[in-house]
């Protein structure tokens, strides 16, 4: 039995379960109503986005030190998947904020640092997609991956000087069903996250091999 299709199938079922948990299992939040349910996807996605970029940081450091392409591919795959979850956060956030705060966007530490982080890793992705695939570009990207993470800390600190209004307490003051739902969805999304990273890693590795083989083939043809 191949483990990969099974994991994929399980995570697909898991995603249905996640929707059931968020939209049916948990009771209606009293003050915010139905719109609060978006948080079961918003919050885990934010955590996973941070995780992706942290993994990119680790992969970048690993690449700079060892120069093994597996670290570089790990960083790239992590950044890509982190970016996807970042987009989920940036889409679900305003959907909630509009009815709850009356505004799509606020200048608030967590919002700005998330947006900036997504911007930095968009730049990372653009660099990887259009900057070429040479060894120098990998080093360039690794520096970006390493500089990106501490930068977020500075952005966060900077914006905190203007005071924030992020709803910290939504889950902690809520009942245990809500907590169960939140962490279950997190676990399911984590599986999806890992699956996607593994898949992207394998795709890049294969693309890599195909390029190398094609080069070898063209050299043999030239002889």
């Amino acid at each position, binding site marked *: 039995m191949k483990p990969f299709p099974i994991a994929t199938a399980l995570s697909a079922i898991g995603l249905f379960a996640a929707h059931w948990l968020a939209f049916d299992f948990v009771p209606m939040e009293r003050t915010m109503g139905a719109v609060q349910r978006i948080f079961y996807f918003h919050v885990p996605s934010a955590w996973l986005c941070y995780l992706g970029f942290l993994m990119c940081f680790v992969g970048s450091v690993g690449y700079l030190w060892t120069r093994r392409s597996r670290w570089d591919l790990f960083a790239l795959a992590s950044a890509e998947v982190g970016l996807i979850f970042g987009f989920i956060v940036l889409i679900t956030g305003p959907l909630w904020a509009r009815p709850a705060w009356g505004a799509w966007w606020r200048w608030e530490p967590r919002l700005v640092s998330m947006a*900036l982080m997504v911007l*930095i890793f968009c*730049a*990372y992705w653009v*660099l990887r997609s*259009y900057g070429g695939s040479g060894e120098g570009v990998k*080093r360039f990207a690794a520096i*970006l991956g390493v500089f990106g993470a501490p930068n977020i800390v500075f*952005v966060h600190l900077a914006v905190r000087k203007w005071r924030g209004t992020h709803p910290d307490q939504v889950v902690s003051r809520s009942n245990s069903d809500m907590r169960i739902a939140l962490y279950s969805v997190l676990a399911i999304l984590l599986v999806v996250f890992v699956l996607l990273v593994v898949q992207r890693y394998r795709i890049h590795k294969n693309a890599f091999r195909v390029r190398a083989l094609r080069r070898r083939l063209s050299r043999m043809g030239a002889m």
Partner: protein
Amino acid sequence: MNAPGFFSVVGVVLAKDLRTELRSKQTLMTMAMFGLVLTFVFAFGFVADPATNKKVLPGALWASLLFTGTLGVGRTFAREAELGAFAALVLSPADRAAVLLGKMLGNLAMSIVVMVLVVPLLALMLRVDITATAAIIALQLLLGALGFAVVGTPLAVMAVNARFAEVLLPIVVFPLVTPVLIAGVKGTGIALGTTIGEDAWGWVQFIAAFDVAFGVGGLFLFERMVTE
């Protein structure tokens, strides 16, 4: 034969860059010209009543610093890459962190010259009197320019390896210097009295902390970056 010490390498590299620049004036002229053009863009785009002008000035100042600075770091490394001299620089026994520091200071010097031109001109065009707070604004911009050089220089070194380096560099550098931009615009706003908040010194310290963190980080990483 002994390899020269850290600070003499910094000096030698900095002197080389300044001499190169004084001879061709290519980078400085393009940066200054771009700064001038930006001044007019901001003036035509934003000039309004005196109160609004005062609010617009910090943003215009810091945007000018970022835009002209990007031009500067990109050019200095295009020159290193032109005939492949950077490889010889890396191969020499000179301390690589010292080489990077020399190049950072060269970029900083360029930004200072350009800002000395652009800041008074912008203030003049937007008719804001900055003489009373000139010292603190100058300090903020100086530290900001250092922050930009500290992040931009190592990335510009790496950019010579990439395709479309001139386009990619700003895309990559701007998000990374956002903390400096935020702190700079807020700090200058406070200095001019248009932004309410704690004293402007808090923001000065913030930029200084950024400079130290990324400066030390960059110097530390540079050794790891430059070889294949």
